[in-house]
């Protein structure tokens, strides 16, 4: 016998409204209860019918061929980036964004472990993009961007037009998580002669919530706690 609470859970599950942990718990119930499973499946079928309640749109010309070609491509290329231009970030960096997203989505070291999770909630919902702006009077064009994946606890930083610094100093990335009294280090890096750098990073401590990213200038090798001037920051 299905009670009202189970009906409610089934309705929320059918509409993909259950948080991931509740969804997993509910699906475990479904696996053990054929009656509940059949009911939940009927609710999902009813939800899916809402797709018909829209104005029919003509399919774009060439869409079938485009999808067929995408299916035939190697797996690494099968990521459709979001179409968002960032006019005040150099094109090379915008292109690198797409590459970074591909990298993060194809993190093969954890991909198998995440298959079931990916079926329940998209990887993309775990990603954060932050734009970093210059805090330097003498380098107003310095900029940066971070693509952060909270699920894999990793990210990609890319900066441009950042001034070079002596060998005895490093730029250090910081991740601001309010649960820590101090920002968490994301590692150190140097820029090339044209002020560019790209770094894959993993914070030194688990990050639950990213409020902001910052880059400071520190002594070579980095420091446990930010001391030097902030060069770039953003959220």
């Amino acid at each position, binding site marked *: 016998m299905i009670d*009202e609470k189970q*009906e*409610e859970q089934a*309705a*929320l599950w*059918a*509409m*993909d*409204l259950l948080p991931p942990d509740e969804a997993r718990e509910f699906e475990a119930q479904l696996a053990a209860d054929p009656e509940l*499973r059949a009911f939940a*499946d*009927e*609710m*999902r*079928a*009813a*939800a*899916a*019918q*809402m*797709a*018909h*309640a*829209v*104005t*029919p*749109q*003509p*399919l*774009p010309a060439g*869409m*079938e061929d*485009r*999808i*067929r070609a*995408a*299916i*035939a491509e190697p797996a690494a290329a*099968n990521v*459709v980036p*979001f*179409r*968002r231009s*960032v006019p005040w970030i150099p094109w090379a960096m915008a292109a690198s964004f797409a590459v970074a997203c591909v990298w993060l989505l194809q993190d093969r070291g954890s991909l198998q472990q995440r298959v079931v999770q990916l*079926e329940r*909630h*998209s990887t*993309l*919902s775990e*990603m*954060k*993009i*932050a*734009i970093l702006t210059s805090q330097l009077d003498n380098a107003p064009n310095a900029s940066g961007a971070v693509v952060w994946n909270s699920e894999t606890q990793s990210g990609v930083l890319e900066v441009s037009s950042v001034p070079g610094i002596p060998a005895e100093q490093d730029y250090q990335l910081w991740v601001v998580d309010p649960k820590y009294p101090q920002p968490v280090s994301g590692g150190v890096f140097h820029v090339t002669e044209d002020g560019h750098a790209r770094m894959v990073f993993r914070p030194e401590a688990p990050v639950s919530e990213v409020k902001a990213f910052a880059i400071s200038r520190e002594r070579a090798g980095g420091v446990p706690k930010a001391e030097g001037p902030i060069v770039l920051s*953003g*959220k």
Partner: protein
Amino acid sequence: MPQASAAQRQPDGHDAAMAARLQAGDSAVFPELYRRLAPGLFSMVYEILRDQREAEDALQDAFLHIWKKAATYDPARSSLFTWAVMIARHRAIDRIRARQRYARATDAAAAEAEVIAPMAAAERADAAAERQDECIRIQSALAQLPDGQREALDLAFFNGMTHHEISARIGAPLGTVKARIRRGLLALRETLTKSVS
């Protein structure tokens, strides 16, 4: 009374046969898969995203997932259409959320998803007759729901709002929102079951 649309409501032998070919990686099944799913899926993701290019990308993304994750489809539990709808909707909702996060990151005004009216009249006469019949059938079923239930289902399905967000949007307690979703979906299920039989 409209006939059942291309076995899209209940799983059947045709779905199972197509799934078997998908799971075997039979590329020859793709044209039929596309003809069967693409029109409905594209119309839905377009309604959610309201952007032609993003809808195209979401549709492509959905088909890639359908193709690569064919092994996860269970014809005993749902029709192929139901399975595909939830995949495509997920992709579209993800794009809305990424769009909102990006807007926050660039200090731009967050783009709010439009509230989609379920009873929007069909504007194009070139839709296949079967799709048009189905559209009318579902719109009629939704029209029979009380306003609160229909609104809750719309906000959840087409705008990707969580029940917490719906509660905040319409100013109703969370329990009320959950109840409306439950009752609305139950009523929709019953109405659609009756119309098929």
